């Protein structure tokens, strides 16, 4: 497998639209960002010969919505103390995060070509000491939520409006540290903390139901003191609405269950447990590329 060459690093720099931009434009912007991030991520995994493509694809709409229209973080203010924080707890989808950071200008697009190469800053799990825009070195599961609670506490102590978002995998919720953190979030009434669960119902080798069933997840989160919202995790409108509503319920942290499909929307990959960290063959790669490129938004594909 050849390494990803610079010519495959086609992601354009995007950035948020101006605040007055209408919802239709905003959603089209997010959709096109997500589509291009997916294409790039597919190339990343195919050419690197490794990665977690299933989880990447299930998380990309959430990442594109956050970076495209919600977070007040951009390449120019990655060190601003008052920036919103996004913590990727499911660190194994680092490829999706790098691709998103490249799409929104945090790192050079060309740098994606180094993904997983020896001495690259783009390791299989994110490293904040090497990549701007990363808030925590995650990878072991169950770490992001406590860190997010700590940041949300710091904002509360500062009486700052800055917001905290953390993306956790659903299988990851089997780690007890998440529930420790949820108790503390509720106790401290961290209503500017939003936990997003990538609820694709698949973990490494099986469904969550077969492994350690999380349901009824909404009831569990509610019992831990969270305001619980369920959305289609591939619907940018639903994501945008809930992620922009902070606080969602005053006095309560928010728990967004984003229903997703691992591998979405690639036909042979979607909701298929085999694609946790499988690498597409050349034929599979070309088919996926064809499907993703066909989905271009007619109005925005050129302008962006």
């Amino acid at each position, binding site marked *: 497998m050849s390494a990803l060459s610079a010519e495959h690093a086609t992601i354009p720099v995007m950035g948020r639209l101006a605040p007055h931009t209408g919802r239709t434009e905003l959603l089209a912007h997010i959709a096109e960002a997500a589509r291009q991030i997916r294409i790039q991520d597919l190339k990343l995994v195919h050419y690197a010969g490794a990665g977690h493509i299933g989880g990447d694809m299930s998380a990309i709409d959430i990442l594109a919505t956050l970076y495209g229209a919600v977070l007040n973080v951009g390449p120019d203010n990655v060190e601003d103390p008052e920036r919103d924080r996004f913590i990727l707890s499911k660190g194994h989808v680092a490829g999706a995060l790098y691709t998103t950071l490249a799409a929104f200008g945090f790192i050079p697009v060309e740098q994606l070509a180094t993904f997983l190469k020896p001495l690259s800053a783009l390791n299989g799990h994110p490293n904040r*000491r090497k990549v701007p825009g990363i808030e925590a070195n995650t990878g072991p599961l169950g770490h992001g939520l406590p860190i997010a*609670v700590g*940041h949300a506490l710091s904002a509360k102590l*500062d009486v700052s409006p800055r917001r905290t978002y953390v993306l956790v995998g659903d299988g990851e919720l089997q780690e*007890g540290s998440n529930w420790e953190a949820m108790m503390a979030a509720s106790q401290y009434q961290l209503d500017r903390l939003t936990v997003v669960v990538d609820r694709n119902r698949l973990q490494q080798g099986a469904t969550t139901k077969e492994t350690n069933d999380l349901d009824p997840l909404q009831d569990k989160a509610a019992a831990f003191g969270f305001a619980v919202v369920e959305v289609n995790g591939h619907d940018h409108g639903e994501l945008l609405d809930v992620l922009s509503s902070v606080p969602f319920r005053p006095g309560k942290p928010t728990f967004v269950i984003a229903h997703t499909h691992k591998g979405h929307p690639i036909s042979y990959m979607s909701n298929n447990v085999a694609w946790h960290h499988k690498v597409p063959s050349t034929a599979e790669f070309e088919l996926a590329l064809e499907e993703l490129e066909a989905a271009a938004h007619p109005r925005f594909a050129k302008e962006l």
Partner: protein
Amino acid sequence: MTEILTRNESLRDRPRFDCRDSYVKTLSELAEHDHRIVGVVNDSVGSSKLDAFKKSFPDRLINVGIAEQDMVGVAAGLANGGRIPFVSAASCFLTARALEQIKADVAYSNRNVKLCGMSPGMAYGDLGPTHHSIEDIAWLRAIDNMTIIVPADPVETAAALRWAAEFDGPVFIRVSRMGVPQVNADDYEFRPGRAVTLRNGGDVTVISNGTVVWRALVAAELLADQGIEARVISMPTVKPLDVEAIVAAAAETGAIVTAEEATSKGGLGGAVAEAVVENHPVPMRILGVPEFAPTGSAGFLLDRYGMSPEGIADAARATMARVR
């Protein structure tokens, strides 16, 4: 190198101090002048003696409940938000239960978190090995980007805390509970990675830290009575290590004994042995805790494992005897 004490006959009889008192006094003073400082505890307000801190700064003492993984992750998040968290928890639970958070969230992420291990070693003597924290130094020494400090007395505890508050990065400080006499001068200045020579001597060197330093000083008195001049080095910073002082001791005295209230595998003794073997091999003896300790107070157990003043003196003579 600073010579502070030359005669210590009375060390055994001097007043003993619980270093947690120095800890909370210093932390409160620091917090008074730096609003970024917060305490983070796992229901350990009382066991960390933080009641006074809580009274002075009620909003700045974060109690996450009995949840160590969350406690350290929360501290990393507080640091992300610009705060300087001092995590205060029993060292056994802090380091064992949250080891991966210490590795990933604090050290690897390079967050400005101060991990304060309360009542380390065998301070919870008769509560047994579940509550002993003899492994903490060895575990944390294996983690990159982690400064490890084991103060010997209240003066050094305060000085190390003041330094840690200024330093931007991960630090682990052991805060002793078992009473210890003051061995450092009142105007002692802590310098990271620097050993303190408390007594000069050319026949053998005893390197120790924490609660064992005063015992080493008394051992040197016993040796002096027998005509043996022992160098006594206090090594508050286990990491980074003062290799220069160790190599000089090896070269100039020819025999080294280490003694610590921690496991004899991979702690201060291990660190010194690595420096000695790589730079200037000489006979060594590593005193520490070799097993899950039986029931007994910390003082009783230290004596049992050869770290009474007499035991340390015996080890020094035996090690000298191995010098060709």
